């Protein structure tokens, strides 16, 4: 009974793995497609497919058609690690792209290191990915927690806040962002004092205990990296208590994106300063107009999401590097990505050959009500470049 089962699966798997491969480029894509992370994962998938379709329409990469193999990471490092390994060993992908959540990014990067496959991290922000955990095959096109924390500290200084409560998710991103903010505060607002440190479990839905702690701590500013549905729940539970009237809320985690502002509409609280990689209503780079129109046509709505651009840029980097290297070989690809510079819908992006980190800055600003808009928009929009001035 057991023997026949083993034999049958072995045969099936061998057949599956032996499918056609030589004349196509295989990209392994890892985003969360269900659950808490889907708010960001689904639009990211959209941008990924848009880039792949554009490239295929223009003849693919190195004259070969691009085929994507997508797997759900479930927002968990263990699942992401297993999925990444399977993409490499079973589907035979040439390169890995994606990752959402810093812990997931680190887990995928470890698989890439073991298997010797290039991984382009499009969303994970933990600084460790390009510092202590960097290896020859990992590259990041997203921003990172030191840039983000520094920008948040600049806003703290502008607003003249003195007492800061920090609330972060209890995993790599939250811990590293807290460290980034701390370093930033020393540079930009040395007299601001942190009075409260809170840690929330990833995926948490009940924030009442944290809200009362913040309100009792007497801080005038809150720094945070609660992203996606974490922020939505936090804001909905905090607003009735007047939390956002009492403090200024400075947040990383891209809660200024259309995904969050457009979803929350009237529930979006006052006094929020946040960031985003892209805004459908703000044309920082001339090429953004065409990109946004194409995305709008694809999404069926003029008000387009922010995450597509990240996944889009990741694929474009891979394509440019492959053309430059003339092959999909991991070492050649890695060599080409070092110092690679491409123009994107949000401006020129260059990967540092030493750190493997792209100079990805973000748009920052207050989220305000505006005449004619049925949800909050960022105004004024300020681009804070990926530079840390000591």
């Amino acid at each position, binding site marked *: 009974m*057991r023997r026949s089962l083993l034999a049958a699966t*072995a045969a099936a798997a061998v057949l599956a793995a032996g499918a056609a491969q030589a004349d196509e480029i295989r990209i392994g894509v890892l985003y969360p497609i269900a*659950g808490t992370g889907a708010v960001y994962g689904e639009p990211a998938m959209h941008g990924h497919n848009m880039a792949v379709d554009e490239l295929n329409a223009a003849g693919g990469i190195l004259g070969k058609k691009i085929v994507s193999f997508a797997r759900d990471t479930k927002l968990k490092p263990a699942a992401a690690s297993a*999925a990444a390994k399977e993409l490499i060993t079973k589907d035979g992908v040439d390169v890995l792209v994606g990752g959402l959540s810093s812990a997931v990014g680190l887990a995928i990067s470890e698989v890439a290191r073991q298997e010797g496959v290039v991984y382009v991290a499009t969303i994970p922000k933990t600084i460790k990915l390009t510092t202590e955990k960097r290896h020859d095959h990992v590259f990041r096109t997203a921003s990172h927690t030191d840039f983000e924390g520094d920008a948040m500290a600049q806003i703290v200084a502008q607003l003249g806040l003195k007492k800061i409560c920090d609330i972060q998710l*209890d995993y*790599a991103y939250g811990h590293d962002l807290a460290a980034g903010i701390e370093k930033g505060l020393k540079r930009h607002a040395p007299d601001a004092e942190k009075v409260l440190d809170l840690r929330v479990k990833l995926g948490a839905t009940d924030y009442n205990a944290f809200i009362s702690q913040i309100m009792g701590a007497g801080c005038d500013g809150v720094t945070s990296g609660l992203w996606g549905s974490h922020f939505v729940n936090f804001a909905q539970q905090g607003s009735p208590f007047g939390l956002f009237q009492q403090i200024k809320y400075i947040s990383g985690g891209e809660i200024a994106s259309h995904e969050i502002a457009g979803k929350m509409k009237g529930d979006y609280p006052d006094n929020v300063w946040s960031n985003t990689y892209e805004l459908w209503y703000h044309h920082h780079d001339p090429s953004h107009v065409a990109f946004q129109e194409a995305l709008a046509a694809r999404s069926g709505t003029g008000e387009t999401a922010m995450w597509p651009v990240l996944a889009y840029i990741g694929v474009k980097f891979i394509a440019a590097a492959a053309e430059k290297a003339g092959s999909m070989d991991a070492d050649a690809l890695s060599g080409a990505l070092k110092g690679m510079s491409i123009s994107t819908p949000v401006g020129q992006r260059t990967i540092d050959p030493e750190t493997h980190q792209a100079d990805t800055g973000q748009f920052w600003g207050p989220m305000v009500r505006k005449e004619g808009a049925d949800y909050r928009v960022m105004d004024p929009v300020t681009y804070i470049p990926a530079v840390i001035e000591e």
Partner: protein
Amino acid sequence: MTRPVLAACAAVFLLLALVPLLESNYLIDLFNEIMIYALFALSLNVIIGYSGNVSFGHAAYFAIGGYTMAILLTTYEWSLLPAFAAAVAFSFAASAVVAYFCTRLTDIYFAMLTLAFSMLVWGVAFKWRSMTGGDDGFVGVDVPAFIAERVPFYYFSLVVIGAAVAVLWVICHSAFGRALLAVRENPIRAGFVGINTRLMRWWAFVVAGTFAGIAGSLFAMVHRGMYTESAFWPESATVLIMTLLGGMYSFFGPAIGAASLFLLERLTNEYTEYWPLVLGTILLAILMFLPEGLAGLAQAIRRQILRGR
């Protein structure tokens, strides 16, 4: 050991030894993980099938073995043998302490206490970031160079698991195993016959925990990482379902259950994100139609065929 069983075991072992010849990294990883889960499920069955108690917290010892191995190999740079011995010793010690408390209770109280202890282990893994990596997991385990490659590690894993299963078989079929069955069937009568039922149940728990620790230590090496999910209660539920699916009244049943459930999860993952729905349906089907699991089903079919002859 009866001759057909021995022959079947040897055949399975040989077939598993041939897997690397297929030259598919995917299959090597797949079979490696199946073997690890098979050992995990077999170890749980010592508590469930042999001593007649249901543990909802078996993942704790798997995680203790895994984290010990990961941390000692990587953070403290121990070599393989001492690290492995420590992983076994830690899971032995942890299950010995927990068993001391749990075996004072039976039935639902026993089950709840095992769950409580496993959540404690999860809590430590989650909060002790400097040591375990917390929610990010312990990523990047340094596997010793001589088994760092896929194929040598596969054979290492095969030998360790083969030996562990053989030892488990001997334990379960010794006088100790028979005494456990007596305790399971009728603890009062067993007590009157002169069996120290609590001590027997304590030993069953410790054996189960220790072998789960061995499975966990291999898991940490094959994944080059250890994650808090491995200690969380759904993991305990998964291995429980594996055991039930395979059949708790048969020694090898849980291994079959582990292989089936693991393969099913891998296959459904490729088509749908609704794995929990599939899992729930399977559990429902076992409870209603297959109380003795796949092993029981196989036996019923065999009886049917023999009768038909």
